[in-house]
């Protein structure tokens, strides 16, 4: 309860309030980064173009073109992972408290913090697997469909999370 009093008393009250409130607003998640968001959209477009070509079939004569497309996409994804690592991470003390709260309610994120990095790792795995299969046994319709679906899921995870950071 605070009453309107003399200026010195008010200053003392403010000082007291500030000292109690030393940990007021917090940052539990990274800041939104437009470059990362834009980079993900670019990577998504590249991926969809690659899969559009794969869905038409993967004949041996177009293997060099697919290799180039895969390598370009790999480069884009690896560049994004590097950009992510450079992003400042918030103070972990309060983040750990928030994660403990969620763990107690059955949501355990496990070790590692960044879902976008997890998604990019998964996407790089898909590119590597496509390159491997294309060189070896070829890419059947079902395999292409499964890789495409997984790609969409990973991009959904990364893009949803990054957009949510805009706050």
């Amino acid at each position: 309860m605070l009453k309107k009093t003399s200026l010195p008393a008010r200053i003392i009250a403010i000082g007291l309030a500030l000292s109690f409130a030393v940990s007021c607003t917090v940052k539990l998640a990274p800041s939104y980064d437009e470059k990362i968001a834009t980079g993900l959209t670019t990577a998504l477009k590249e991926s969809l173009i690659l899969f559009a070509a794969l869905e038409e079939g993967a004949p041996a004569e177009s293997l060099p073109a697919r290799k180039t497309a895969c390598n370009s996409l790999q480069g884009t994804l690896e560049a994004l992972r590097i950009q992510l690592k450079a992003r400042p991470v918030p103070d972990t003390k309060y983040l750990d408290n928030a994660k403990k709260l969620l763990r107690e309610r059955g949501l355990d994120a496990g070790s590692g913090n960044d879902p976008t990095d997890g998604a990019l790792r998964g996407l790089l795995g898909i590119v590597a697997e496509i390159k491997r299969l294309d060189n070896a046994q070829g890419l059947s319709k079902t395999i292409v469909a499964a890789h495409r679906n997984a790609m969409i899921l990973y991009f959904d995870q990364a893009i949803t999370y990054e957009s949510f950071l805009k706050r």
Partner: protein
Amino acid sequence: MQIDPLLLVTDIKGAATAILGKDVTTITGFSNRQINGLATQASLVATGVANGEIAGDTLTFFLDQLIDLTENFVKTMVGLLIVTIEKIWNAIVKVIWSAIEKVAGVVLPVPNIH
């Protein structure tokens, strides 16, 4: 001049509800897309196994990937919820700070630990 605790509680609830309402819609939508997508993925892998297109190392890859997709889905959900917790926490602090400002009669910068 005093802080009215009941009014403060109403203001806090209002700030939290405004954030929760919007965020819950986004998070629920994401969760539904992921769950449907994971079910589709499992079905595609099963089809590939049944018709012989997915076997050996390729099958191992897809099975490991299903686990990874699920784990990263959970990681993303936790990430989204943490952002929501942050927004609500900070909104509550601002409501309390504003109430103190009105009583103190001065503008107080909201301290933060960003």
